[in-house]
């Protein structure tokens, strides 16, 4: 007798992995970061797109001016880390749900982890090493506080 091959039967005798199980913390992280991100993202969108001159205000000087302010440095750092990890953790659960073989799962998870790490490092680097007054730039393109230098 042939039965249709069972693609989804549980592994024989549920082997309970020992050690720390991150799933609970992953789940809690998604809820907690989600709440904070609502404030961070809408604050970011409001300041960049609505307040003052609105979207027309965005140019090099606007961004440079923001990144010279410690408040926005902290805000953008939080936004970068919370949002990126939130997103990559979501992709991780999708990969866990949809991949069919352990090998593809492994490859995709490593790819996501690598991309996340690279983006986090690059983003953080930009936020903290950003030079708002590059040498030799035209005065009308850089923030106003560059004049005195």
């Amino acid at each position: 007798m042939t039965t249709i091959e069972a693609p989804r039967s549980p592994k024989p005798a549920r082997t309970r992995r020992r050690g720390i199980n991150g799933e609970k913390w992953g789940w809690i992280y998604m809820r907690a970061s989600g709440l904070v991100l609502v404030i961070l993202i809408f604050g970011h969108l409001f300041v960049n797109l609505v307040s003052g001159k609105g979207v027309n205000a965005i140019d090099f000087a606007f961004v440079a001016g923001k990144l010279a302010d410690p408040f926005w440095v902290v805000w953008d750092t939080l936004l970068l880390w919370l949002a990126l990890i939130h997103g990559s953790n979501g992709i991780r659960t999708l990969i866990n749900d949809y991949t069919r073989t352990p090998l593809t799962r492994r490859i995709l998870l490593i790819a996501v982890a690598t991309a996340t790490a690279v983006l986090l490092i690059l983003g953080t680097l930009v936020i903290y090493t950003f030079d708002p007054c590059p040498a030799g730039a035209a005065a009308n393109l850089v923030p106003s506080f560059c004049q005195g230098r």
Partner: protein
Amino acid sequence: MSTATLDSKPTVPDEIPSFTATIIVRRFDPDKDAEPYWQDFDVVMYGTDRVLDALHKIKWEQDGSLSFRRSCAHGVCGSDAMRINGRNRLACKTLLKDLDISKPIYIEAIKGLPLEKDLIVDMDPFFESYKAINPFLISNTPSKDGKERKQSPVERARFDDTTKCILCAACTSSCPVFWTDGQYFGPAAIVNAHRFIFDSRDEGAQVRLDILNDKEGVWRCRTTFNCSEACPRGIQVTQAIAEVKQAVMRGRA
């Protein structure tokens, strides 16, 4: 005193209205078929008939080889969960007249469990998950005076909803996470864990919470609500899972 008599004769219609329903069943015979296929049947049915009656009519009058499970036929045993017009329901609780009978009615086996024949699936993986959560009262303290363990109505009401489960697998086999690789415990197992975790007489909550804190435990629930919609007993399955999540986070029931 007089004996109650019928004053006027009840009106009996000359003919009970009937209709022809087209039932399309997903057939599979492991001895003959490589793949499942759809087969049409036309049956004359009445307004009071259920999907199960239609299946009976097919099996008894048209094709005796049609295989499906059913035991009590009254929505209690949980044997005849199947996918009717794309939704998991009990064939014995679904009236034909509630479906759109102007169109064919599609009936197939529940998804996510190995198909054995026609509408019959291998329920072993489902019951393995159920067994894994220790579905029995765990208590290390002897009962008072050797008598029954008393419980207040409030304590009983805490887990009343999840006592209704009949283990028909309609919820678990409607869960998209269960479909993916079948490793997830599934809503039914979590519902039955909930039934004991929140039972004031039970002392095994910690054991069950540890089991469900597994990689394949409650955290794989994506709150799709498919299970709550599928449950023929109206159990708020997603809510029960959320309560178990809360209990795992707090570390106690």
